């Protein structure tokens, strides 16, 4: 899952980045509203974690202008404001969820997963394709009922392809999804991961479309 964190407090930002990367999230960060909005417009993210109080452009303003530009990436608002009015204002501005500070990291993870499930996986937490079974909550993949050991990147790619089931994803999209904007990889890396996935699961699960990308039927 690829997440954008827009948060001005560096200590909180570092904590979130460290914690989420540790959970195999791909994390991009921005420390102010303007940068955050630009990144959200130009890249694809599964969820945006947005702080309310930001310098230059507040979280609510960023959220409103994203929604005005028809960017519907799910947004989880973080804020120290915790009155009912604040919650209503946040949700009315187009936030998908709302978490008051100080929050529990476990709860943040659970909510991120729930948002992701609702949007990218259309509400399911388990999917079965032929003899392959994927559990999005526990990130466990089974083949014929037997556990398949996947690396983080392998699982991420599988999940990404499954969430875009039926449509072709380009190597650029995969690169953007699996790595944050500061990491550089060669397209060869993606080929290797696809090759390994095919070996571990089944040869014909992931199909290639020359010069276009990969897809799962």
């Amino acid at each position, binding site marked *: 899952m690829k997440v954008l964190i827009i948060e*001005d*407090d*560096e*200590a*909180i930002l*570092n*904590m*979130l980045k*460290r*914690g989420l990367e*540790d959970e195999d999230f791909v994390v991009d960060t921005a*420390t102010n509203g303007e940068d955050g909005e630009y990144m959200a417009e130009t890249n694809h993210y599964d969820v945006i974690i947005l702080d309310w*109080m930001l*310098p*230059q452009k507040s979280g609510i303003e960023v959220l409103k202008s994203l929604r005005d530009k028809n960017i519907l990436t799910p947004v989880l608002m973080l804020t*120290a*404001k915790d009155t009912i009015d604040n919650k209503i204002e946040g949700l009315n501005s187009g936030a998908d969820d709302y978490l008051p*500070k*100080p*929050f*529990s*990291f*476990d709860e943040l993870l659970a909510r991120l997963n729930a948002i992701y499930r609702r949007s990218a996986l259309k509400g399911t937490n388990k999917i079965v394709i032929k003899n392959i079974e994927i559990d999005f909550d526990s990130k466990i993949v089974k083949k014929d009922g037997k556990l398949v050991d996947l690396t983080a990147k392998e699982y991420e790619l599988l999940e990404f392809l499954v969430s875009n089931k039926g449509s072709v994803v380009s190597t650029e999209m995969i690169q953007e999804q699996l790595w944050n904007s500061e990491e550089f990889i060669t397209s060869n890396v993606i080929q290797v991961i696809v090759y390994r996935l095919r070996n571990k699961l089944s040869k014909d699960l992931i199909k290639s479309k020359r010069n276009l990308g990969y897809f799962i039927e």
Partner: protein
Amino acid sequence: MNEHKENLKSIVLWWLGTFIALLLIIFNTIFYEMLKTSFYTRVENSLAIVANQTKDRLIPNSDKVITIPQKLDYPISPVMIAVFGAKNMKIVAKTVTFMNVAMYPYLKSNENFFIINTKQYGKVALFISRIISPMKGYIVVATPLYRVDIKLQDILIKMLILNPVLLIVLLLGVNIIIDRILNPIKEITKVANEISVGDLDRIIPLPPQKDEIYELVQAFNRMVVRLRDGVEMIERFNSDVSHELKTPLTVLKGELEIALRKDRSIDYYKETLKISLKEVNHLIEMVEEMLLFTKIENEIGKEEITRIDEVLLDVISSLSNKANQKNVVLKPVTIETIDYKTNPILIKTIFTNIIDNAIKYNKENGYVYIYLYKKENQIIFEVKDEGIGIGVTEITKIMERFYRSEKSRNRGIKGFGLGLSIVKRALEILKGDIKIESQENNGTKVQIIFNM
């Protein structure tokens, strides 16, 4: 309050009524007595005229008999006249109407005017005059007083009726005036009873006349506004404080939870503990600043002659350690000996915060130049740093509570944003001024000025 409720209006009416009633009684008694005296004096004068007129016209009849002339043009009527002999004081002549009273005691007296009671005519006024011709004796002129008395009685009755009416009209008038005075006060009471900390938006409508009540209402409304401002300030302070406390708490909670999610390396735990310690220190700093903020309020009014140069040197030496850690050099340039009547704790707070900021926001290996000098009638404390500076748009905001410039946030400089607002409050108490000149990335100059 006791059970018995005192009513201002009834008190005023009762006392005013009693006072005016007494005044009326005294005034009218005096007036009535004066009127009576003046009436009787007139009667006396008239009788004296009659006596004089008659005296000259007494007609000697025979040796011992005289006749009193009739139908003279008297200024008073009816008149009764009698003449008494000087020796035996026996009646010599009299008009028919003259009353039948023993005149001996009156004739012997030195007085010449009497008011006596008779069976025949009731109250009667007597005037006695000596005569020598046609014989030695006395002439007594008398007139019944019933006319005068009826007039007096008339006046008395009118007074007795008119005075209570006057009193009632007066009290009714006073009643209306008191109501007009008290109604706004009742309104104030009503609103004051309704006002609570949660509802300070009430304002009492101003009365139409600009009188003392108007001023009272104005003062009351201003008080409510001041209270509201105070409560708003406290509420904002509370919400700001809890908001500011939440940030380090979020980091602490998050870092600790993440560390505990799985087994980690020792280095990972160390890193987590380091971050946590930093946040805990930050929390301590915040709490101390908050306490300082409330503490300075207790210093109001406590002033003494202070060697402020010594206070400054103390501050410099206590901050030198912190400056060393950041590789910043504190450089006192001029520090004049100054005695000044002020609050040493507030002065120390101001110096500490200003120099502390200059250290915090300085560049690596930067200098902090410190001046303390007198100029004309001013004491000037000046601090220049070589740090990140403050943007033009931010310079007005930095005195606000919890405001931290964008750069200070982004550079991860820990602070609470209370420092300068503490300085601001201390300067308000000490009646000092602050001037801040700054260029971004080119250092900041802060001047604190006290007028001697």
